[in-house]
């Protein structure tokens, strides 16, 4: 149930982002809603729910982007695996540490997509772009993560933990 609610929240946030960002020029600071969700679910709810979330938000992101087929899913699954293996080494106790981890994950995402392009196709025509946008996107995602964490914690306290 929790995973379903969080995946629907993710879907709504991504649809909102796709339609809002078109009206406001936020190219440089475009946040990523999928990664904070994946990290939250994997970290606090376990690998199983995390994997389901990856599949849901991964395919939604793929549907709303012209990124080459499989690239977004590859990056999200990689981040899911890294989070699963780092679970015992990382300590997230507040929304701030969660935001920091999400920001680092965005930088990692950029590096992963670059690595994937170079390994699989031998070229990355938008490498400069990806590197240029990595830090601003990480900052905006960090900021958005604060709200996502607070919102999910509120949902947990108000509705979801009652089950």
């Amino acid at each position, binding site marked *: 149930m929790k995973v379903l609610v969080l995946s629907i929240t993710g879907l709504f946030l991504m*649809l909102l982002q796709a339609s809002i960002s078109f009206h406001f020029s936020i190219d440089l600071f475009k946040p990523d809603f999928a990664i904070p969700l994946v990290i939250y679910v994997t970290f606090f709810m376990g690998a199983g729910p995390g994997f389901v979330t990856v599949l849901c938000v991964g395919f939604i992101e793929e549907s709303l982007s012209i990124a080459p087929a499989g690239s977004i899913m590859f990056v999200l699954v990689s981040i899911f695996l890294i989070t699963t293996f780092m679970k015992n080494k990382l300590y997230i106790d507040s929304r701030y540490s969660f935001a920091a981890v999400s920001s680092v994950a965005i930088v990692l995402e950029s590096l992963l997509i670059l690595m994937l392009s170079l390994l699989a196709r031998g070229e990355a025509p938008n490498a400069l772009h990806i590197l240029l946008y990595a830090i601003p996107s990480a900052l905006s995602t960090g900021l958005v993560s604060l709200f996502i964490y607070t919102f999910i914690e509120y949902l947990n306290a108000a509705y979801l933990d009652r089950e």
Partner: protein
Amino acid sequence: MKNSIAIILAIFVLAVSFLSFTNTPLVVKTFTGVKQGLGLAIGPALKIVGKPTGWIGNGFDRYVNLIHTKEENDRLKNRVDTLLMENQKIPELERENRSLKGLLDFVEKKPNTMIAAKVSGEDLKNWFHSIIIDKGRSSGIREKMPVITPKGLVGQAVEIDQWHSKVMVINDVNSSVDVNVEGKNTRGLLEGTGETTLKLRYVVKNDEIEIGDKLSTSGKDSIYPKGIPVGIVITVDRNKAGIFSDIDVMPFNNFKQLDEVLIVKKQ
């Protein structure tokens, strides 16, 4: 145990997405099938979510416009003076008029070759430049169909779902358009840079081109029909090493302010 299964499945999905990225035929087909299946639901959902955000966006635009009304008034007064001087540029305007008429004829002669669509969103990732339109396969849109506005070229449809499509805008790094310089015998390849301006490549240094020249599609890339206005040359640098000039082009369309577009059906 549960965790191990999730990890094994994740590694399997990782391998599938890698193979899909490398264009392994069977994997790509399956992956795209799943993606398109999900696209069936995404299109209408985006339309519903896009409505209120559209109102918010328009409301914001109106508010910003109101703030700048006084400044705009002063600017317009100055503009009247400038326009009086610009009257001298009528021949140039006539040429532009002819070009626009060409586009209009193109539309009027073949009314059934155009599909109008509303822009409902843009790419989630800032690495790519694409817009999402509210018409898809059900409206007759297919891959590689050119997308235009009365101002000029927007791009081409690249991914088509049942109810919505994604259009790669010409400033995307993966976009290139074969163009002619209007009124001159110069041709080049216009490539996206991921930024507002575009780069005109493969124009030899002694080719005839200067700042202010207008570019239109040549029709030789078999994607875009001939004669669609694309942009205007803003810098020409012949001092760069090599045999080609370094040319920047400003597209006629502002891709952040598109509300409606026309999709040109292939004959």
